[in-house]
Every structure is written in structure tokens, then in C-alpha cells.
């Protein structure tokens, strides 16, 4: 048997010799074409029977030089590229980027635009968590929840379509405001959706949370101690599932998040179950935020005055927002020209993914998909 | 009616095939399989006698059941031994496992 060619990262212990394999020590290549790697992630698993003794994630199959492209476009032109980062939460990506540019320019955004941003970002969080819940159910063999979640997500996408004309890559946020105001009756539609959506959450509970088989699959699996989570700079639901109450919307409030009342779901059992519950509760909290924002929504302008060609003063900025997956950071250096001198994305999914091998050691193959599902990666963001 | 000798000779052939296999195969699992063949051959004789000697009150079949039960226990233990061998020697070829030889 010839040895297969594969790049082996320096410092890893996985050595690939296929000639001598038995079930006692076997290497399984999971992905990039695998139903549960959520895209083109590739995991090299070292198995002892069904138990995983080592795991190396290989990323980069979706790399498209996002950051280099960003340095060759002007500030406004980068917005559509950010859509493609986390294509399941494009609104949040837009949000983070325009916030960074606005901080760089020292630009104040009209209040109505700020509220619109929060409403859309929280709806986006609901949509993103719905996809996560559906695919997580699928990973564990429950197909029905997938369809249920997609039904609700379609409704969110309808709302987004009514606002922006797009269903996936919205490019709706603008530097200094929003592209357009909400269309007529949109606010009523949104309220109607929220009223419809709230009773759906107990339905998901009945199908997933309260199901003993599901609980057995996720409890005590993929343990991520708080210390390890902090060491790896994990963020978002990963961190909150490890018992650390850290949410940028609360700990480093941006936009108008300090004006809303919402709970921070934190669970400290550090397993897949905790991360599941965090995301599950976050959907309810997002509904609360959207409701408050709709109630407080002020009238007025939606776009600040910005020059035709945006030339931020020379300097640097790091703006971070809480995307559905965790801390999304945009780091920009301006040299006063219309294009960013340096543009860097701190992508939450990539950082969270790096903890995966820690969580997988000693797990079964079946747990692998559960743990990976609980990380909630989007390869567009991981690979950039 | 098929003569009893047919069954007995078939059983004898099967048994000897098993003996040959048990003596010649290198793989421990294959040796085990040959032994299972031998046990089956014996069972075949038992059942044949039970059919042709009704005055024995189906003793042959009863014994065949015992043989099957013991074969199951034997297989389980033997396979555990094979696994243990494999862990220690990284092979299950019995002629390579010769630590006790000098």
C-alpha cells in the first residue's frame, strides 16, 4: 500500500501509515466531504476501535484571501465581502465591519439606524441559531427538528428579504447608517413573526431538550473546562457553556445594546448539553431584545452624513461584536487612503474550532459529530 | 432412506479436513475455524446416530446441544486469547509466536 500524501502540520503527533492499520489503531479521514463536518472541514481522526485518541482539524478548503481582497478595495466595497464570511449571519458580519470603520472615522450613527442594526442583528442571531439547532439535530439523527427549524428560518429570511431584497448576503449595513428604512408594515410583520416564533421554542424542547435519548447523547460529552476555554480564547456560546458569563453585548456594549433588558444564559456543566442550552435560551433572549427594540424604535434619519470617498484618518481600530458564534473582531489600520492598509478578521468560529481536539480526546466517533456540532462552525468564516 | 454410513463418512471427511486445517494454518483465527469444523463433524455424527438409533432417546441430539454450547464458550475464550496475542505480538500467526521455544 502506498502512503497517501498529505500535509502534516508541524508538531502534531499524527503520523499516517496506512500499511499497518487495524481496528486497534486506525486513522479515519473525516471530511472534507462528509455529511457532518458542516462544509469542507477535514478531520483526521486517530481511532482505537470507536474511541478517538487524537484529532487534527485541517482547514483552508474554502480560503479565498478575504483579508487581502479587503486591502485592495475601498472601505465601502469591503461590505459585500463580509457577507461571505459567515454566510449564515451576514447581518452580524456587516454590523461588525461597519462598526469598525465608524470607530475609525469617529462617526456617530443616527439612533434609528442603531435600532435597526440591533433588530436585524438579533433576528440574524435567531436565524443562525435555528440553522445550528436544525443541523445539530441532524447530526444526532433527528431529522424532524431540521425541517422545523428551517421553517422558522424561512420566515426570518422573508423579513430580511423584505428589508434588503436578499435572502442570504444582504450587504444592508452602510458606513454611517443603513441602506434603506424598514418598508411599510415590516414592523407589524416582524411582531407577528415573534408572536408566532415564541410558542415554537417549547415545541423544539419537546422534540429535543426533553428527549431522554437526546439528553444522554449530549450530557457529559465534549467537556471544555472554563480554564481551557479561556486559554484557547474561545468565545460566545462556547464560553458561556463553560460557565463564564461573558457576552460583549453586556460586557463591552456597542451600538444601543445597553438600553435593553435581557438575560445572559450561562451553564456550567461545560459539555455539549450546556452549549446546546445556551444557544437554545439565547433565541428567547433575542426575541426579547427585538421586542424591546421595536417598541423603542425612534423616528428619524437612517444615514449619517459621510463623504463620497471614505478616507478615515490614519490610525488603527479593533472593533468587536458578539456574533452568533462569539467574538467577531475587525482590526483595521488606515493610512489615510481610501483603502484599508491592513484588514484582519478575528473570526469566532476559527478560534472556537481550535479547541476541538481538546474536547474530542477520549470521545466516541458518534460524539465527534455532536461535539463538532456544538462548536457551530461556518467554514466561510473559518477559512476566510 | 439414506444409509447411515453416508453421514458418517461425510462426518469423517469433514473432521479430517478440520484436522488438516488446524495443523497447517498459521493464523490463529483460522485454526479456530478449523476446530469449529471438527466440532461440526462430530455433531453431524451425533445427530445421525440419534436419527438411526431411536432407542437411544435422542441422546445424540442432546449431546449435540452440549457441544454447540461448549463451542460457543470456547470460541469466546479463544478469540479473547487471540486478541491478547495480537496486543502482545502484533501478529496472530502462531508460528511466529515462539517466545517459549528455545
Amino acid at each position, binding site marked *: 500500500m502506498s502512503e497517501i500524501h498529505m500535509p502534516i502540520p508541524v508538531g502534531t503527533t499524527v503520523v499516517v501509515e496506512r500499511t499497518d492499520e487495524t*481496528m486497534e489503531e*486506525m486513522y*479515519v*479521514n473525516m471530511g472534507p466531504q*462528509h*455529511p*457532518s463536518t458542516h462544509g469542507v472541514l477535514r478531520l483526521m481522526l486517530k481511532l482505537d*476501535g*470507536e474511541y478517538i485518541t487524537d484529532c487534527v482539524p485541517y482547514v483552508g478548503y474554502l480560503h479565498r484571501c478575504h483579508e487581502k481582497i479587503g486591502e485592495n478595495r475601498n472601505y465601502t466595497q469591503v461590505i459585500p465581502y463580509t457577507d461571505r464570511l459567515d454566510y449564515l449571519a451576514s447581518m452580524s458580519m456587516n454590523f461588525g465591519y461597519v462598526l469598525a470603520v465608524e470607530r475609525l472615522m469617529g462617526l456617530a450613527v443616527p439612533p434609528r439606524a442603531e435600532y435597526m442594526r440591533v433588530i436585524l442583528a438579533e433576528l440574524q442571531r435567531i436565524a443562525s441559531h435555528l440553522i445550528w439547532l436544525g443541523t445539530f*439535530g*441532524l*447530526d*444526532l*439523527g*433527528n*431529522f*424532524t427538528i431540521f*425541517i*422545523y427549524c428551517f*421553517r422558522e428560518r424561512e420566515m426570518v429570511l422573508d423579513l430580511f428579504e423584505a428589508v434588503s431584497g436578499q435572502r442570504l448576503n444582504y450587504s444592508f449595513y452602510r458606513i454611517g447608517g443603513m441602506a434603506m428604512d424598514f418598508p411599510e408594515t415590516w414592523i407589524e410583520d416582524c411582531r407577528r413573526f415573534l408572536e408566532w416564533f415564541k410558542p415554537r421554542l417549547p415545541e423544539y424542547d419537546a*422534540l*429535543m431538550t426533553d*428527549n*431522554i*435519548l*437526546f*439528553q*444522554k*447523547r449530549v*450530557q457529559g460529552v465534549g467537556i471544555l473546562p472554563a480554564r481551557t476555554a479561556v486559554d484557547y480564547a474561545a468565545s460566545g456560546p462556547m464560553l458561556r457553556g463553560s*460557565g463564564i*458569563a461573558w457576552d460583549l453585548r453586556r460586557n463591552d456594549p456597542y451600538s444601543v445594546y445597553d438600553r435593553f*433588558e435581557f*438575560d*445572559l*444564559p*450561562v*451553564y*456550567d*456543566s461545560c*459539555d455539549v*448539553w*450546556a452549549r446546546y*442550552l445556551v444557544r437554545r*435560551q439565547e433565541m428567547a433572549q433575542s426575541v426579547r431584545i427585538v421586542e424591546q427594540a421595536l417598541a423603542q424604535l425612534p423616528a428619524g434619519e437612517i444615514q449619517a452624513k459621510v463623504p463620497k470617498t471614505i478616507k478615515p484618518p490614519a490610525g488603527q481600530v479593533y472593533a468587536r461584536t458578539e456574533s452568533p458564534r462569539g467574538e467577531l473582531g475587525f482590526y483595521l489600520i488606515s493610512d489615510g487612503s481610501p483603502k484599508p492598509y491592513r484588514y484582519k478578521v478575528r473570526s469566532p468560529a476559527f478560534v472556537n474550532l481550535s479547541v476541538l481536539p481538546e474536547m474530542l480526546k477520549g470521545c*466516541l*466517533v*458518534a*460524539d*465527534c*459529530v455532536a461535539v463538532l456540532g456544538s462548536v457551530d462552525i461556518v467554514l466561510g468564516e473559518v477559512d476566510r | 432412506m439414506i444409509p447411515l454410513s453416508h453421514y458418517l463418512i461425510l462426518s469423517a471427511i469433514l473432521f479430517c479436513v478440520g484436522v488438516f486445517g488446524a495443523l497447517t494454518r498459521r493464523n490463529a483465527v483460522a485454526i479456530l475455524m478449523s476446530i469449529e469444523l471438527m466440532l461440526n463433524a462430530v455433531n453431524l455424527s451425533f445427530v445421525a446416530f440419534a436419527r438411526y438409533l431411536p432407542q437411544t432417546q435422542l441422546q445424540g441430539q442432546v449431546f449435540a446441544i452440549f457441544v454447540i454450547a461448549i463451542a460457543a464458550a470456547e470460541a469466546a475464550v479463544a478469540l479473547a486469547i487471540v486478541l491478547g496475542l495480537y496486543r502482545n505480538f502484533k501478529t496472530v500467526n502462531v508460528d511466529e509466536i515462539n517466545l517459549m521455544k528455545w
Partner: protein
Amino acid sequence: MMIFADLVQALYAFTTSWGIPYVVFALVVMTIQVGVVVGYIAVAAMFLIWWERKISAHIQVRFGPMRVGGWHGWAQSIADGIKLLLKEDIIPAGADRVVFVLAPMVVFAASLAAYVTIPWGPGLIVRDLNIGILYMVSISSLAVVGIVMAGWSSNNKYSVLGAIRSAAQAVSYEVPMVVALLGPVMLAGTMSMGRLVEKQAQGSWLGILPGWYVFPQLLAFLIYLICALAECNRLPFDIPEAESELVAGFHVEYSGMRFAIFFLAEYANMFTVAAIATTLFLGGWDGWWVRLPGLSPELSHGLFGLAWFQGKCYFLIFIMMWLRWTLARVRVDQLMDFSWKVLLPLSFANLVITGWVVVAGPQGRLVVLGILLVLALTIGLAVRGRGRAATVVARG
């Protein structure tokens, strides 16, 4: 059924009158029987595939197939079958060709052979073997051999993992399954499928309930159903082919016709286990019947029996499908734990209690006592298994 026997008699008289030897006659009868069974499996499997798609769709607020054939896409399975037949038959380069080709045949032959002793109606059975239920159990245990062969010969690690899982699962679940089946066998005092049904048709429980063994043997029935799910590799026990973990498990390298045979065998197996459960626990073809106008009582009974049997079987299959589209998949170690630590002790308890009741005589009180004891055990175990909730540290 008398009609059936009469038919065979008439055919025999006809052939002998033409001077055709008995061998030819026997072969012809056997061929017809096999043809009928194979035809039934093909049609039933196609129906089940379509039905499962409809059930899953309606559980998931969809419609499922709606186009092919007009009314609710009834011809979808036929179209899919034709598609699979016309697909390229691929054997992977590294595969062990002989075993690879043989594996689907073994699986299908196993599920086909089990149909021999299914009692379709009063007297309507291909061969009423006196070891009927044992035969069915042992023949269906052959299927796992085919699965292991498929998994190994594909030369794919996912399929090997699937095969290993399948082997472990089959070995574990066969034990409680057989022990659970012993309950009704002990009550009836026979292993023949036909006589098992007749015994149930004659008796009655507490004067009002039909004499089906599901009432005194509720626990055995539930254990059997769970084991049957595992035996058919259905969710929540479909770990040998878990698509989100092992892609497709043991049949990951199969395509076209060979895959179709695996698929067909899966649905044929579902019917087999439903038929076993119906025969042993739900009284088989036993049920209410009237004489149809213009037909002899025997024929009407036979037709009603056929309908009852089919109805009960498809009801059980519906439950299996319902479970599949509601539950999550269990993990391989949980599967083993559940079999050895829960099902096996329960089935042994059931066996002991049943034996005690059988020996003690047909006293209604004892039976009820047994049921209660067993139910208490079940509930106790189920309650004990409630999951622990994670601690919440939510802050307002």
C-alpha cells in the same frame, strides 16, 4: 386455510391425471409459493418506502412525493426502483469482489427465507414448521452476516466501522429478543407460528379482552419491539449506517442495484419483525369477522384474517416509522449498555415470572400480579434514567 389446501389438492389431482411425477408438481407448487412471497416483498417494500416518505413528510410539515403517478406520488417508489436499476453498478477497485457481490444476496436471502413461516391467515402459511419462531429468529440472524461481509469487503473504513457496530449490535440484541419471545412460546406451549395464533384465537383474558399475548406479556412485547428496531437497524438504533457519523455505514460503497437490494431487504425485514410481533403478541390473524355475502364462512374468515394480519403488521410498522422520525440516534456504548443492563435483566425477569405463572396454573390473579410487578420494574427503570439538568447561572 382450507381453500389453499383444496387448491393444492386440485392442482395435484390435475397434474397426476396428466401423468406428471410428484417431483414436478412439488417444484411447481414451491415455485408458485416463492413467486408469491417475492412478489409480495417487492410490492410491500415499495409501498413501505413510499409510505415512510409520506409519514416522515407529514411529521415534518411537508407533503413528500406528490408528482410521480398523480395521486400523492404513488408511483415514486417505482420510479426510484427503475432509476436504481438503470444506475451504473460500481465495485470499488480495492474491494473484495466475491464477498462484495455476495453480501447483498445474503442479506436479501435471509429476509426472504423468514417469510416461509409467516401465518398470513387461518391455514394460509407456506410451511408451518414446528420450530417456526426459532426458525425465523435464526434465519434473520443471517442478515447481520451479510452486513458484516458488505462492510468488510468494501475496503472502506467507514463501512468497516459500520460492520463492527452491526456485529456488536446483533450479538447484543439477539439475546434479550429471543428471551422475550420465549414468554408467549411458554404460554402457548408451542413454537409453531400457526398454532401460536390458534391458541390466542381460542383464549381470552378476563373475559372481555381477546386472548392475545400482548396483555400478559406487555413487557416482552415492548422488549421485542425495541430489539426489533435494533435488528432492523432502524432509528434510534441505526448506528451501523448512521449517516451523520459513518456517512452510510456498511453500504457506503454500494450503488445501483446492489444498494437497492439492501434497501429492499431493510423494508422486508421491517415487515418480518412486525409479522413476528403480530403473530406472537397481537394474535396474528385473529379478529372480528363476519360471513361475507356470497362467500363461504371459511373464505370470509380467511379474507378477514388476512386483513387483520396486514392491518396489525402495518400498524406496528407505522409505530417504527413514527419513532424513527421523532427520536435521536443513540450512541454505540449506550446501545450496548441498554441491551445488557436494562433489556436483558428485564427479559429474564419476564421469563421467570411467566414460567412461574405457567407452572402455577391459569389463575388470573397471578397473571395480573406478574403484569404489575413487571410494569413497576419498567417504570422504575425509566424514571431512574431521567437526565440531570445543567446548572443555570443566568443573570438578569
